[in-house]
């Protein structure tokens, strides 16, 4: 599954970045994600400025995609469960992508760039307020 976080600054200029290891909170509404700290400067600044966030989750095997839109809750250092979720996500994303012909070296390269070269991760928490079907096609954007 590919996960991308979208935010915007005070002038409504958007910023996108990849995220890893999504986890749903016990309240079933809050979600946490891990991002590479070194490359998340603008995203963090945007979240602290206005708290608006959109996150897409897409399966490479069939392009089924959902988008969560909500409000930023805060950041934290990832704990052991968060880092385990990141590893599971890495492995399942690699397996599903290579299953539809994506070169394993590409996936390993992506992982290397995102997580090995930027080893410090940051956990971002947000509350999901709206859920959308974002699967490509005429209904993309329909609220679920």
């Amino acid at each position, binding site marked *: 599954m590919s996960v991308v976080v979208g935010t915007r600054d005070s002038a409504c*200029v958007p*910023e996108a970045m990849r995220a890893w290891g999504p986890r749903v909170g016990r309240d079933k509404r809050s979600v946490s994600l891990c991002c590479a700290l070194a490359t998340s400067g603008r995203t963090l600044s945007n979240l602290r400025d206005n708290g*608006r966030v*959109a996150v897409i989750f897409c399966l490479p095997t*069939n392009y089924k995609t959902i988008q969560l839109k909500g409000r930023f809750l805060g950041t934290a250092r990832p704990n052991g469960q968060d880092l385990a979720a990141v590893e599971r996500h890495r492995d399942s994303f690699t397996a599903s992508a290579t299953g539809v012909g994506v070169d394993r070296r590409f996936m390993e390269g992506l992982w290397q760039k995102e997580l090995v070269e930027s080893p410090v991760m940051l956990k971002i928490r947000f509350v999901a307020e709206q859920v*959308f079907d*974002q*699967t490509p*096609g005429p*209904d993309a954007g329909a609220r679920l």
Partner: protein
Amino acid sequence: MNAPARLTVPLESIEICLEGIVPATICSCSREGMPNATFLSVVQRLDENHVALSFQFFNKTRANILENPRVQVLLVSPETSEQYRLDLRYLRTETEGPSFERMKVRLDAVASQSGMSNVFKLRGVDILEVLDSRPVSSGFRAEAAHKADYLPELDSFTERMSRRGDLDSLLSAALEALSSLFGCPHSFVLFPDEEGKRLYTAASHGFAPSGVGSEVPIGEGMLGVAAERHAAVRTTNLTREMILARAVRSAIERRGEQTLLEREIPLPGLPNTQSQLILPLLVRDSLQGVLCLQDPTPGRFLATDERVLQIAARHLAAAMSNIRLPASPSRTVALRRKGAFSKRSSVVKHYKSDDSIFIDDAYLIKGIPGRLLWKLLEAFVGTGRMAFTNKEIRLDAGLRLPDIKDNLETRLILLRRRLDERCQFMRLVHAGRGQLHLEVRRKLTLEDLP
């Protein structure tokens, strides 16, 4: 007018990220300040400071772009896995012109192949200014520059073409040269039929079985659309294109709009094609044929490859056209029977209804090439005649050939290659310009059937 912004990373150096091998993500923002992220099917580089995005559906991204022109596209390099952010500003939507037409042909070709012609409609092309292009990671390495100097290969290709005097050997030489010079081991050439309704494969390289004789309707599928529009169609990741098309197909089915859907057309050629480049062979805007290159690796044919192979294809088309000019009087070729004449015999059946030919009940060919072969076999069995000329065939009213003389040669190539592939004891040999030699090494019994 302001000078274009100097980008942190020039677009030209990351062109491979815009090839559709790995999907891009676009992030837009509404006037009220709510961001929206979604995947993008096509980002096309127009020049050093502009890109084009396809506009097919009225969705949230579209609404946001019209409210707030600032968007960002997140790209990934399929070669280095490096990521880049393009900070963009929407300028306008074009519904005609070169960018629109180029994107439309590509979209229509995929739509036709996937049975989605009524669904994938290009409404417009959004033109965006690139304000900056920057790497996501600070320690990024520049993308490897793609080879742009193909002059020695083109020189050798054109030289090899110039040495060929007949269409059959020209095609064989061209496909072999595409393999040895340009690293394209899987290729085939199709010719349009007399009615201009279908394409039939006349030559191939790197396929087993050869596929010679297989047909594609003009206007259908990627090959048919490329032929109909006289436009190149290039795809860099067919699996991704088909997964995307099937996702949209499922959405249409869920809406109960199955009537919009057509059947998905199987792609001819390699069973695991990922990259494909289709180049119409045009002379003075007249379609001589279609050259198709396939490869099992995603991203095999990039924009540079298309430009280079387009030059090779144009040269091949011109060479084909020159060869098809009326033949000058040439020497008579001495005919002799080659190979041992077998004691075995075979039965050749001709069905008049569709001019199909069966040898010992195995199908060989139908249509005009079938009619042609039957005429030659009747002469051979009746009088022992083995030598024929193109001219007499053209003038033979009994053959009911369409009044397009260029196509006789291509039909003969198809017939010759089908015989080479499917018959051990019969060959049609090119015996000098405008002459044919039928070689038969077995006693034949002919049966003419309704």
